[in-house]
């Protein structure tokens, strides 16, 4: 107890140093907790959404995303005598409040649904007892949960305006039910749903509770398929895993920088207490007990920091959740995350992350402390000699770590988490080369630059090289943080540039018209036939267009699971819009005439497909084999897409719907003027039919807006990492100044002014900043190469072209100098 008292007094006496170390850990922990909370909340929201959709359902009958005839349900009940079946309509709609809010319209049949209810379906119980009559008879009426009512700011009996595909409708809120399972949806009777969605004889799917999938017999034919409900859950969750893992990894990068900060603080506290440890050793404290004491101190500090970090992380999550849910909505599926709840598992994760990283940082200093000799005063110079000895071993550790990292990368293609670990090994391996590099350059630096400076500046800069045991770690930490910032900038910049180039090549039409979509990167809705007719007949469009290209996006079943297919009208301009990673020599004729398709790079990556391989796709006539004629670059979605000629798609799937249209203008027209007048025409049409229309440049801008939105979270994490490194500089300067109190007192006695002393500190901090920026460049470039070519490719299957904007290097230099100036 007395020993702990002694430690406590030390840390309270050096409170500034202690607070900085605490901030380092708590920032690291807060990021980990915030990211975890966001991911857990999005998964929970997704799970709730699935439970709302499936309940006790074991299987469901659907038609690959298309609606199915109501007659099928009658057949199941009457012919197959299956009692446990219920029809469901489930559609995403947009509710007009101050802004457009995504929500689900769920149409159920209250009678047949009884058997599907789970014990937690209290809202539906209330419904069946109290107001079933109203539910069935009231025109365009529905129920919502109290949370959703609050979110939409609506009261009982009020009306809501919603948009589905091309039309606007109204719905009246019959009652507000206090049931979380009804969050983010409007519950209506199935006939109401049919009426509201203009689908009088069709339903979305039929939910079933069956033991044997063969019970349905011949009913499962054509485009109808029986899907296991759990499988759906698993496959969708799998989609998110790479995204989540990338977020987790980013958060852990900040924690690595925090580890350096802890190392710095603890090793400083140990050097300062070398005499105390010496007395302890003389009085009979064993080296193991000294080691234990430092570890206990670290544990106490890390627990305090972690607890604050968890609280801060909870706050941060409330902000980050908006970015993350937006990204999930943009890239994966529609999910509305209503709240972020602090779970015990997340708290534990935060505590473990904080404690482990602090212990990792304190291990070496604790070991150094345990070696404290009894009562001998360890001089700073002997500390430096010891560090010099460490440096000799550090070479070996560094090379071993880098080699091991590359070996693992070479053998772990399929395991993303192991890839990240390998990246961390390489990163740490290269980072710990920094102290040795500083040592190597120090003499040259001294000869060329320092020797020419004034004595005051000499004192400042030379102290950096003469106190390597302290400064090297700070320079390493700052280099790491800057390199992370640089690598993220280069990676995101390369990605952005690749997407811009890809958009320029791919978007050949001048105006795009598409069905309204709830997810930014997938247009699977349809343009109504009336609208198509009006567009084709419009005189201005007719006069100015050279071609109108139609696209149809749909989900199809295949031997590889459900895949997105896009059918396209093919012409010379479209042909040129594809940039291929690999292709067969006669891909154009194969694609137009034969049973060939082309697939996007992420799809090829996901299923390890090459040109010449085959995929079996379920058409209206059963499964049919298609040969892959080429693999094209595509950054539209990470799940991948199959491209098929419109002619073949229409024939084999008997689907004449159109998801979007692309108008190619005649050459020699004033593009801006023509686009302007076509937009005016489309605006008029849009008052009757609801659809999206965008010019080529609008679409590019919109895509880049979504792109930038996706990477906003990366920016936030980058800033926090730099902040931790910045704290590291302050902490080091503080440590050095406390250590040099005596030296400064002598200097003052010799006539050095306070201004001169400030100049020394400034010279020190600027040297730290400059050296860190220099070392961060190769470190950042290496990370960027690995992130682009290995991690990104293995996560999403995208080939990105390395693009470096030289202004990023200047930015990094400026950040480093500014951070060190402020710290100084």
């Amino acid at each position, binding site marked *: 107890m007395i*020993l702990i*008292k002694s430690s406590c*007094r030390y840390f309270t006496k050096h409170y500034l140093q202690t607070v900085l170390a605490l901030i380092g850990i708590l920032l690291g922990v807060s990021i980990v907790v915030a990211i975890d909370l966001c991911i857990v909340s999005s998964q929970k929201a997704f799970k709730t959404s699935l439970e709302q959709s499936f309940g006790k359902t074991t299987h469901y009958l659907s038609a690959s995303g298309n609606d199915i005839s109501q007659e099928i349900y009658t057949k199941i009940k009457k012919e197959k005598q299956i009692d446990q079946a219920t029809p469901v309509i489930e559609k995403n709609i947009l509710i007009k409040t101050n802004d457009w809010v995504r929500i689900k319209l769920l149409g159920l049949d209250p009678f047949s649904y009884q058997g599907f209810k789970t014990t937690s379906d209290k809202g539906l119980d209330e419904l069946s007892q109290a107001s079933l009559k109203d539910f069935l008879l009231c025109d365009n009426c529905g129920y919502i949960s109290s949370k959703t009512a609050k979110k939409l700011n609506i009261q009982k009996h009020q009306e809501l305006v919603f948009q589905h595909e091309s039309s606007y409708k109204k719905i009246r809120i019959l009652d507000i039910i206090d049931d979380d399972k009804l969050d983010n949806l409007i519950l209506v009777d199935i006939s109401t749903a049919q009426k509201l969605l203009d689908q009088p004889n069709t339903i979305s799917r039929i939910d079933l509770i069956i033991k044997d999938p063969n019970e349905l017999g011949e009913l499962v034919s054509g485009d109808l398929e029986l899907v296991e409900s759990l499988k759906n859950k698993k496959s969708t969750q799998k989609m998110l895993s790479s995204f989540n893992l990338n977020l987790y990894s980013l958060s852990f990068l900040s924690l690595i920088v925090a580890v350096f900060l802890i190392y710095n603080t603890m090793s400083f506290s140990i050097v300062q207490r070398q005499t105390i440890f010496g*007395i302890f050793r003389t*009085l009979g404290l064993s*080296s193991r007990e000294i080691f234990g004491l430092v570890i206990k101190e670290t544990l106490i500090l890390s627990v305090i920091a972690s607890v604050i970090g968890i609280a801060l992380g909870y706050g941060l999550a409330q902000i980050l959740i908006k970015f993350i849910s937006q990204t999930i909505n943009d890239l994966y599926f529609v999910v509305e995350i209503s709240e972020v709840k602090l779970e015990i598992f997340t708290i534990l994760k935060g505590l473990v992350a904080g404690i482990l990283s602090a212990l990792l940082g304190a291990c070496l200093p604790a070991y150094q402390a345990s070696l404290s000799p009894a009562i001998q005063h360890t001089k700073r110079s002997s500390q430096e000699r010891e560090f010099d000895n460490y440096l000799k071993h550090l070479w070996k550790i560094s090379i071993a770590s880098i080699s091991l990292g590359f070996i693992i990368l070479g053998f772990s293609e399929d395991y993303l988490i192991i890839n990240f670990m390998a990246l961390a090994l390489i990163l740490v391996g290269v980072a710990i080369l920094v102290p040795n590099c500083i040592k190597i350059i120090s003499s040259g630096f001294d000869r060329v630059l320092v020797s020419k400076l004034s004595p005051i500046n000499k004192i400042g800069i030379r102290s950096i090289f003469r106190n390597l045991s302290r400064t090297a770690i700070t320079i390493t930490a700052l280099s790491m943080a800057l390199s992370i910032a640089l690598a993220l900038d280069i990676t995101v910049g390369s990605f952005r540039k690749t997407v811009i180039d890809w958009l320029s090549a791919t978007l050949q039409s001048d105006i795009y018209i598409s069905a309204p979509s709830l997810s930014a990167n997938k247009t699977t809705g349809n343009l109504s036939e009336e609208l198509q007719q009006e567009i084709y007949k419009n005189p201005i469009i007719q006069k100015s267009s050279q071609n109108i290209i139609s696209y149809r996006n749909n989900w199809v079943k295949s031997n590889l699971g459900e895949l997105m297919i896009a059918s396209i009208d093919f012409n010379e301009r479209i042909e040129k819009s594809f940039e291929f990673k690999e292709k067969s020599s006669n891909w154009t004729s194969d694609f137009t005439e034969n049973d060939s398709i082309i697939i996007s790079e992420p799809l090829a990556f996901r299923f390890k497909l090459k040109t010449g391989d085959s995929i079996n796709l379920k058409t209206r006539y059963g499964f049919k084999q298609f040969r892959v004629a080429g693999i094209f670059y595509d950054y539209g979605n990470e799940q991948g897409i199959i491209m098929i000629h419109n002619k073949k798609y229409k024939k084999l799937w008997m689907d004449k719907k159109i998801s979007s249209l692309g108008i190619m203008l005649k050459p020699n027209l004033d593009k801006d003027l023509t686009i302007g007048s076509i937009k005016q025409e489309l605006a008029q049409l849009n008052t009757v039919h609801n659809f999206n229309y965008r010019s080529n440049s609008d679409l590019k801008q919109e895509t880049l807006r979504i792109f930038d939105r996706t990477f906003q979270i990366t920016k936030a994490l980058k800033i926090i990492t730099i902040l931790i490194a910045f704290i590291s500089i302050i902490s080091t300067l503080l440590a050095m100044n406390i250590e040099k109190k005596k030296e400064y007192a002598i200097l003052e006695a010799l006539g050095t002014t306070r201004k001169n002393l400030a100049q020394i500190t400034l010279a020190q901090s600027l040297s730290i900043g400059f050296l860190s920026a220099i070392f961060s460049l190769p470190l950042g470039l290496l990370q960027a190469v690995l992130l682009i070519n290995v991690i990104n490719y293995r996560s999403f299957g995208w080939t990105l072209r390395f693009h470096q904007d030289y202004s990023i290097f200047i930015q990094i230099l400026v950040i480093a100098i500014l951070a060190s100036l402020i710290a100084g």
Partner: protein
Amino acid sequence: MLKLINLSKSFTEADQKTFIFENINLDLKTNAPIIILGSSGSGKTTLLNIISGIDQADSGEVIIAGTTLDKHHNQNQNTLFRKENLGFVFQFYNLIPTLNVEDNILLPLELNHKNTSENKNYVINLLDRVGLKHRLKSFPDMLSGGEQQRISLVRALGHKPKVLIADEPTGNLDKANSEKINKLMRELCQLNTTQLNTVQLIMATHNPDLIENGDIVLEINNKNIIVSNAE
């Protein structure tokens, strides 16, 4: 009681090996205070460090408080030995600056797991005896040099060691304080002796004024050791 058998210690400088003492032998069967006398750099602190197990000899054995310290005795065993059997007083007091007087003097009891109320009372009585009970809650940086040394004397004897090792205990004090500390040191050793243990004082000093009648004086001279009885 102290026995040195063929004890040698050297240091190497610029590849040149220099012996501080070589193959020295000593067998003292008395509990009288032992004073290691010599000027700065004569090797008295080195000898004291070897006797207390802080440092290791190149060769030979030390038998102190019934324990043999030799090359086979590792650092951890030495630490354990020191904790139980030795008390230390240093030139620069070496109180723990982050602990107040009370915690400083109770620290050896805690390290030896002897912090019973009886032992605590004993230590507080010792503090009273050196006239500093009123400074119980003060921190070392608020005490004068003489006060700090008296506190360190209490800390050294609080856990009732068999030997009190004092390395230039008055080296940092004025004449009056030096005399006071020397007197207290001997008194408290005597007090311990009569009550429970036999506390032997082994003191290294350059100051011959600290030698009293009946002390055994050791001097290192030309790599050898000369023993004499003070009269």
